[in-house]
């Protein structure tokens, strides 16, 4: 107790001094939902920026992912939001731009380092404004247990026929569950199932853009086939898959009880920590030997500027830096599985991440089908596809019914 007063005085003096030291620095804060990346930002990314800009102090202040949108909107309305805002893709960020919360940064130097497809996730429909710098994408595909494949003498499947042959072989052997996926949380069914292998049948971007222009419908053969594939997956899922949650599937796979896991590159870090066997990845199989394969290379994270920021220059300097090759390299290798969207030549060091990024060279890229524009109805098609795909896999809806329902959702409000 005797040391309390002097210590408090020392603390207060110390705080004042650090306040003086900070006084000539501009402090800017970053809003984000990636709380799990705190260490990466504090330890790697921000020091690199601050070394170049000693006059700017950047602080990474994330919110829990599920509360991010609600909390951020409340802070924006109250004028207490950070200077830099991490953007979700498409309508969520667009709504913030329309509300005047995100600044237009179309003239930001460095934006030419990004493709139009990457920028489309954070631009207005007409493309006259861009409000976030594209940051990273995640690639969908399948992960597999290399040890299990070697044990059963299986090859990585390249076509649909190979894929089912491999699944049949695993099922027949019986020592592994062929595929780890459940429908309990619903979103995996759509995200890892329908939007993962669907592009193979609707031809990636071609099919997606045709939906947007009204030339194609979900009831078309190409889109129904995606749901039909989901029906075909049923026999390869584990017992009681209806009550199998996302974490159950993750555990099934990392414990080595399942051989194949439909997923995306965002799992890399976690899986490499937990699995004690060798992991491999393969792209969604092509329709047949003559067709090309398609991957969902989904634009997932962008970074923009609070329109009401008091530190416009510092915020712009930071955004400009996020377009650089240095930032792209730091991000891609610190968080393997989140691939920079910039056109810089980045060396990916993580072996599994390399397998994913190699798919970009072999397959045609597209994004998740319902994310751009199509999710503006009620219910948002992105969410509705969760329910529909889960229903198909649970057997309570046929592929044709699910497709008709999805098209009815679009028809109810969308006029191409």
């Amino acid at each position: 107790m005797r040391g309390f007063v002097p210590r408090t005085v020392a603390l207060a003096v110390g705080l004042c001094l650090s306040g003086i030291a900070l006084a000539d620095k501009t402090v800017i804060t970053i809003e984000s939902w990636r709380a799990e990346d705190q260490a990466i930002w504090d330890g790697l990314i921000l020091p690199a920026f601050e070394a170049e800009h000693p006059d700017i102090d950047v602080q990474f202040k994330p919110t829990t992912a599920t509360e991010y949108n609600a909390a951020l909107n409340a802070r924006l309305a109250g004028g207490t939001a950070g200077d830099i805002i991490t953007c979700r893709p498409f309508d969520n960020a667009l709504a913030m731009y329309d509300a005047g919360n995100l600044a237009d940064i179309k003239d930001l130097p460095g934006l030419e380092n990004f493709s139009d497809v990457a920028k489309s996730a954070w631009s207005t429909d007409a493309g006259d404004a861009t409000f976030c710098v594209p940051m990273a994408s995640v690639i969908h595909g399948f992960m597999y247990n290399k040890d299990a494949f070697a044990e059963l003498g299986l090859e990585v499947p390249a076509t649909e026929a190979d894929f089912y042959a491999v699944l049949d072989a695993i099922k027949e052997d019986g020592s592994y569950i062929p595929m780890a996926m459940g429908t309990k949380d619903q979103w995996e069914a759509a995200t890892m199932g329908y939007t993962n292998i669907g592009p193979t049948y609707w031809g990636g971007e071609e099919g997606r853009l045709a939906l947007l222009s009204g030339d194609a419908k979900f009831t078309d053969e190409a889109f129904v086939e995606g749901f039909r594939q989901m029906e075909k997956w049923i026999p390869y899922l584990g017992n009681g898959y209806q009550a199998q949650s996302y974490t159950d599937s993750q555990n099934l796979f990392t414990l080595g009880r399942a051989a194949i896991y439909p997923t995306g590159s965002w799992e890399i870090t976690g899986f490499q920590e937990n699995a004690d066997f060798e992991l491999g990845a393969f792209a969604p199989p092509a329709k047949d030997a003559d067709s090309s394969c398609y991957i969902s290379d989904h634009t997932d994270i962008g970074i923009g500027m609070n329109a009401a920021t008091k530190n416009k220059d510092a915020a712009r300097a930071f955004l400009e830096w996020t377009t650089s090759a240095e930032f792209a390299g730091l991000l891609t290798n610190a968080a393997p599985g989140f691939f920079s969207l910039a056109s810089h030549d980045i060396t990916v060091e993580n072996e599994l991440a390399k397998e994913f990024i190699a798919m970009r060279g072999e397959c045609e890229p597209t994004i998740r089908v319902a994310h751009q524009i199509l999710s503006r109805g009620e219910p948002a098609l992105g969410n509705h596809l969760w329910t529909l795909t889960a229903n198909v896999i649970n057997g309570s809806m046929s592929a044709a019914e699910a497709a008709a329902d999805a098209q009815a959702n679009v028809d109810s409000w969308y006029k191409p």
Partner: protein
Amino acid sequence: MTQAASTSTPPRARRRWYILVFLAPATLIYTVFAIYPIFESLRLSLYTAQENQPVFVGLANYAKLLGEPYWADQFWNAFKNNIQLFLLHMLIQNPIALALAALLSIPTLKGAATYRTIFFLPTLLSVVVVGFIWQLILSPLWGVTPDAMKALGIGNLFRPWLGLESSALVTVTLISIWQYVGIPLMLFYAALLNVPEETIEAARIDGLNGWWIFWKVKLPLILPTLGLVAILTYIGNFTASFDIIYSLQGGMAGPNFSTDVMGTFLFRSFFGFQAQLGDEYMGATVASALFFIILVGVGCYLFGVQRRLQRYDS
């Protein structure tokens, strides 16, 4: 006494002043944290956003809630599930609680305190813990249920109950009953202990056995508590059911919205869910509709039932 009070005015004035002082804290706290938010959310339900500005639209949101298929389907589905939840609680939870309370209040029962604690323990657990434990118990992958059922020779009867549209709501209800049976149990138990010993003795002397004493003497005497438990179940089923469903089935209340209740529906409307953007005005409308449903239920009870209940003073 009354004469003295009416003839001298100063003490009366002072007494009024005291009443205000004592009422003030509760009134203030309830006004700020309960009454004001209720009115504010009722007011919000009369507005909608146009170009980011709230615009008064009267009852249009309510017309939307009950008229547009997207909203009406969800609303009636959630309402139907809530009613089902309420009926199951009334038919299963409260009779079990009453039976256990009747057993516990037998004076000769040994270890009553231990049983009482055991029955009440789950109520003290966090809903998140209960949700997690039961998900594990019922899990087709790691759960003890499939193995236990196999050991009993009924392994082929096991189903992934939480994942099937036909059984998810009932399963969730049974889990909720497991957790909360302690509360009506305690209320019944306290009421049964209050039944005067002389009355029971008189009944016994008149030749009634334990069974009939319960039905003819004890039950009529604790009828007000039964009514109270019924209305608490009604309110809890609309407000508290959100926690267990959100922790077991998530915000989409799957499979295929078969466990969706007003609480989860309100949550999705107000805060949005993933690709679905939140709409605070429709959220407030759902919340207000929920408020009216509870109001009507409680009103019916207060005016229709409670006034007719006779309280027997010992």
